[in-house]
């Protein structure tokens, strides 16, 4: 069983499992949307005292924070009990493209080159990681959802706003990857 879980999953099984998570949360009377947690954390830290946007009953959303804690634990389990030595099967053309940007494929989930201590404590690394995160947090709230809230929940409910948001996600991602990456890396 452990071995079966530990192997990388095929995309169709992964997709099925994500749908099951969404349906499970619906059954529990909740809605699958992860980025709300960022707003909830701001509110829990007291941002609601000064800013109306964070002045809401975040405690009613505690379930989502517990889901977040679980997600971290799921990461821990995946990296320990369910770890695999098999390198990630990234397509050869992606490896080549990244090589041209001097980003070397190391077979892990994320490149050590961008997520290791050295990059973190370089000026460029600090700015890239902080600004990248900032855009995710700012954009997701402006758009009212992220890959889960719009991409999975919204599209599954055939919401036009979610389709527009997903088109935006991809437009931004393509601009970053194809136009800005060569300037940044």
């Amino acid at each position, binding site marked *: 069983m452990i071995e079966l*879980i*530990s192997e*990388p999953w095929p*995309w169709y099984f*992964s*997709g*099925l*499992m*994500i*749908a099951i998570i969404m349906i499970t*949360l*619906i*059954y529990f009377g909740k809605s699958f949307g*992860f*980025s709300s947690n960022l707003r909830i954390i701001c509110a829990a830290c007291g941002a609601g005292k000064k*800013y109306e*946007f964070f002045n809401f009953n975040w405690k009613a959303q505690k*379930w*989502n924070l517990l889901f*977040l804690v*679980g*997600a971290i*634990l*799921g*990461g*821990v*389990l*995946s*990296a320990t009990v369910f770890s695999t030595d098999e390198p*990630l099967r990234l397509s050869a053309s992606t490896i080549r*493209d990244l090589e041209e940007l001097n980003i070397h494929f190391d077979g892990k989930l*994320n490149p050590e080159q961008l*997520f290791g201590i050295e990059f973190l404590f370089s000026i460029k690394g600090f700015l890239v990681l*902080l*600004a990248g*995160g900032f*855009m*995710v*947090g*700012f954009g*997701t709230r402006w*758009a*009212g959802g*992220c*890959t*889960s809230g*719009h991409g999975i929940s919204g*599209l*599954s*409910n055939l*919401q*036009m*706003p979610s389709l*527009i948001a997903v*088109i935006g996600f991809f437009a*931004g*991602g393509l*601009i*970053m990857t194809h136009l800005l*990456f060569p300037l940044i890396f």
Partner: protein
Amino acid sequence: MKQLKFIVAGIIFGIIMSKSEAVSWYRIQEMFRFQSIHMYGIMGTAVGIGVIAIYLIKKYRLKDHSGAPIKFVEKEKGWKRYLYGGIIFGLGWALTGACPGPMFVLIGHGYLAILLVVAGALLGTFSYGIIKDKLPH
């Protein structure tokens, strides 16, 4: 204890995100370069099954675990906030390879640098909350 099920659901979500490799910066790059079906397959399958599931829930007026009818909140109409916010999100997604869920899953994998990405995301959300009334929606 009633809330324990959400932690369990979160743990399963974290394992799904890891084993599907959807948390991988490399996979996100591969996706934005159209070099594999992997990420499209994941999202396509999830949405495909999701559409059918929600259709059936509505059609048969299914109830949730407490016996209350399942309701879906319609998203506000409009396009500006979705397009502009979406583009900003996409820029950050491609750069960090992480959307909000995977960010936290990656903390569990021990990538220290992701903590700075999370700090950035919180700062971004906080900033939006401050200036939201000045932005088009």
